[in-house]
């Protein structure tokens, strides 16, 4: 029997979906970690990026943090945190690593989004007597929205991927199905786990693409405003 058939068999076996090692439980862990860590990192990164972007300060930080985030291997950080004193505190090493790696895309995109808002519009808003807070809330944030969501989208995909890796040092999530498959030298289980992870990542990405398309506050407005200014 080929790998494809065996993988299909694995996925259609009800026993593989139930219990603590089952798909549903692992999926639950994966989603829980993803949502919590994404919210925490948004709560940390977005206010900082919006304030820095509004003030026009800290551009070097925003760029460099993205470069650092790319150069540091996620897997190494997960293991380092596991071996640190934090390692004895359940899933804290995973949570910290997830938040750390979600921050760079959030910060960089939101910062660039805020900086790329047409300066003429900001000046016009100020000329109309808007306060700093009003400029942020009514002009800069709506115009920066697409890039901010792009950042959240990259961060979400990053978190899903990092959560998968967290299975190597023994964290929860769908990655555990893959690592268990490798331990059992069960290729079908490895491929089944990998498929589940890939589908989850693509669904998350797709959900954000849709959200971006339908929630943009400037949808259908941008061109008209720019035309009037020009």
């Amino acid at each position, binding site marked *: 029997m080929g790998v494809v058939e065996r993988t299909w068999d694995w996925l259609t076996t009800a026993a593989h979906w139930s219990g603590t090692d089952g798909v549903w439980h692992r999926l639950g862990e994966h989603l829980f970690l993803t949502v919590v860590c994404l919210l925490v990192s948004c709560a940390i990164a977005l206010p900082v990026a919006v304030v820095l972007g509004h003030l026009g300060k800290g551009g070097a930080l925003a760029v460099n943090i993205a470069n650092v985030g790319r150069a540091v291997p996620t897997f190494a950080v997960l293991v380092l945190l596991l071996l640190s004193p934090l390692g004895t505190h359940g899933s804290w090493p995973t949570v910290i690593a997830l938040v750390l790696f979600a921050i760079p895309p959030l910060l960089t*995109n939101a*910062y660039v989004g805020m900086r790329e808002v047409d300066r003429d519009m900001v000046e016009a808003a100020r000329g109309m007597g808007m306060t700093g807070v009003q400029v942020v809330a009514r002009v800069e944030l709506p115009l920066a929205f697409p890039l901010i969501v792009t950042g959240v989208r990259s961060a979400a995909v990053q978190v899903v991927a990092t959560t*998968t890796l967290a*299975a*190597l040092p023994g964290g929860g999530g769908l990655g555990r199905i893959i690592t268990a498959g490798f331990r059992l030298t069960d290729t079908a289980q490895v*491929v089944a786990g990998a498929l589940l992870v*890939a589908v989850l990542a693509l669904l998350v990405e797709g959900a954000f693409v849709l959200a971006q398309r339908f929630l943009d506050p400037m949808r259908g407005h941008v061109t008209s405003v720019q035309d009037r200014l020009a």
Partner: protein
Amino acid sequence: MADGNCLIANDWICGEYVRTRGQELTDATLQHIGITLASVAIGLLVAFPLALLARRWRAVAGPVLASTTILYTIPSLAMFSLLVPVFGLSAAVVVTGLVLYSLTILVRNILAGLASVPREAREAARGMGYGPVRLLFGVELPLALPAMMAGLRIATVSTVSLTTVGAIIGYGGLGNLVYEGMRSYFKAQVLTASVLCVVLAVVADLALLLVQRLLTPWARPKRRTTSRGPAARGAGRPEKAVA
């Protein structure tokens, strides 16, 4: 004596570890460099024709960009696992996975680089009787080089970092040492391998920057102010690089 104790005490930083396991560290580093070089080189060889096809035919551009984006979304552990049935437990799994990841960045940046070539330069070359091939290699590529190199640097740095995940099948370079160190709670090994990995990424980035400066001598006076520009752009949001 004090140095020998750090192995027993399981310290994070241990000179004795580096001295006694020098060979192991060298082998792992060489494997890491080999996997990275192979992946980026193959990535370039595949990305270049893809980018040219995407530029030539609009109908190709959409599917190429969409499929590379989808590949980029798949988490590394899943990517390598999916390739195991195809290649068995070999370095080809890791290299193929890393090539697929690098395509997203490389194709976009090559396209962005070619799009940034001034129309006048192209027209002038055509007027001088340049054919399409000579136009591409003599005029367009040199002018597209800064954006392409920015993409190459990003792809290389991410590849160095992602290679570590190859440890799951035993071909992760320094990642292998991290993985073993994790299983045996060997702190010095994990930290040394992790630091070496970051050093490798930084050295590769600087080496490529140097290559770029040597290849584009005409851009040198301007470089000082613009060298961060394209890299920073590509960094934050590859999605926009082609727009």
